[in-house]
């Protein structure tokens, strides 16, 4: 095995999309890729991991991994990495993955390149590419020493799935100190759908062009018709129209859906930096010189109060016709 993908299971043994992408990313630069997960691995997870192209699924099991604890899990993972000795290890660049990756880098005194969007292999190893300065510039970095650790930006790599092939499950027991310093004492489901932004395949986001919080339902209705997540630009969040969790942009959530629809968003550089990974961007704005049109694949100049309801109706009609 050359490389190890640290994966996060979703509900009922599904594999989160960002984890699937992490395996796909490693397969670009490594011959043989294994995955590692915590706790109990349902059979379905091994199938999912195998379909993504990993050969083995290592499962860190034991009492320490039944309750979530970032520092204990990092210790266990560091121990597993020492024993399996992969050249590279990658995590999905989610809150969970970034937390673990930085902790493991500390325990192993290893180098970590965060937020990778592309990479290539040369004689000396991997050169990773990551966006800096709000996405305007791309930095090429090499991690010195072994193992080289990476987090992969969600949405940057396409998932590759193959014919059904299950990964071989291997249990691995590791030693961890008994008392965690950081304890997770509770998890609450987010009270709003915006929390799904990082994994969302479609997003509809609203900006100040909506005029007031009472008009935000236009965005929500379009999102509901599409089955999309809801986002917002910074001014809208700062004004308190919607919770901070909706914030899309450089200082909020960086997203990479297949379809991003910006409604009444002018397209400040900080907002645009958060959406450049999107496959298709649609902008609806009354101002023909709004910078959002410079990055939009499809731009509609006009009154959003007329266009958005018309678009919601057209989507419903389209869905009705194709179902």
């Amino acid at each position, binding site marked *: 095995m050359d490389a190890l993908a640290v994966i996060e299971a979703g509900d009922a043994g599904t594999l989160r999309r960002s984890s699937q992408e992490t395996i796909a990313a490693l397969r670009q630069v490594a011959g043989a890729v294994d995955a590692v997960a915590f706790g109990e691995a349902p059979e379905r997870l091994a199938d999912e991991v195998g379909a993504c192209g990993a050969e083995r699924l290592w499962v860190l099991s034991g009492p320490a991994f039944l309750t979530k604890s*970032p520092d204990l899990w990092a210790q266990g993972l560091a121990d597993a990495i020492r024993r399996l000795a992969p050249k590279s290890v990658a995590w999905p660049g989610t809150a969970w993955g970034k937390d673990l990756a930085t902790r493991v880098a500390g325990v192993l005194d290893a180098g970590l390149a965060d937020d990778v969007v592309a990479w290539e292999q040369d004689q000396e190893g991997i050169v990773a590419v990551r966006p800096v300065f709000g996405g*305007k510039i791309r930095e090429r*970095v090499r991690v010195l020493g072994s193992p080289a650790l990476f987090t992969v930006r969600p949405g940057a790599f396409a998932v590759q799935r193959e014919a059904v092939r299950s990964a071989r499950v291997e249990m691995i027991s590791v030693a961890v100190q008994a008392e965690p310093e950081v304890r997770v*004492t509770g998890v609450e489901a*987010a009270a709003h759908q915006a929390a799904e932004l990082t*994994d969302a395949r479609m997003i509809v986001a609203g900006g100040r062009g909506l005029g007031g919080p009472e008009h935000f339902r236009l965005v929500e209705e379009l999102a509901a018709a599409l089955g999309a997540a809801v986002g917002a630009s910074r001014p809208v969040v700062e004004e308190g129209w919607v919770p901070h969790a909706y914030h899309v942009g450089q200082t909020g959530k960086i997203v990479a859906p297949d379809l991003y629809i910006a409604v009444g968003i002018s397209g400040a550089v900080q907002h645009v930096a958060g959406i450049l990974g999107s496959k298709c961007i649609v902008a609806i704005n009354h101002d023909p010189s709004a910078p959002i049109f410079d990055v*939009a694949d499809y731009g*509609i100049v006009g009154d959003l109060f007329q266009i958005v309801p018309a678009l919601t109706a057209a989507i419903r009609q389209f869905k009705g016709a194709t179902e």
Partner: protein
Amino acid sequence: MVAVAVEVDPAARRLVVRRELEGAVEIVETQLPAVVGAQRGLNTPRYPTLPNIMKARRQPIAVMPLGDLGLDPVGVQERRRLRVMGYEEAPRRAAGQRLSGEPAEVARELVARLHREAQVL
């Protein structure tokens, strides 16, 4: 950990942090001292007043050589774990298309293009 809300119990030297994950909020407890990252929206910043800004301009800036921190400059180089190989301009998105017409017509046109050209519907 990156926090969206923090409660401190100084007597017990304990910290309770709420932090946002994808699709959930996690409540995490730890002992002090701890390192906490702050997320936007965690708190309302206290902006400096003009007199304080003027005062700040007169404050001396202390420069600490690595040696003062007990670090040896050569050792720091050896412990380096990342090497920057270069920078390049990020690829720009090609200019898109503008659609115009009556709202209902434009909406139908957009849906058709999202389906046929962009293939995202």
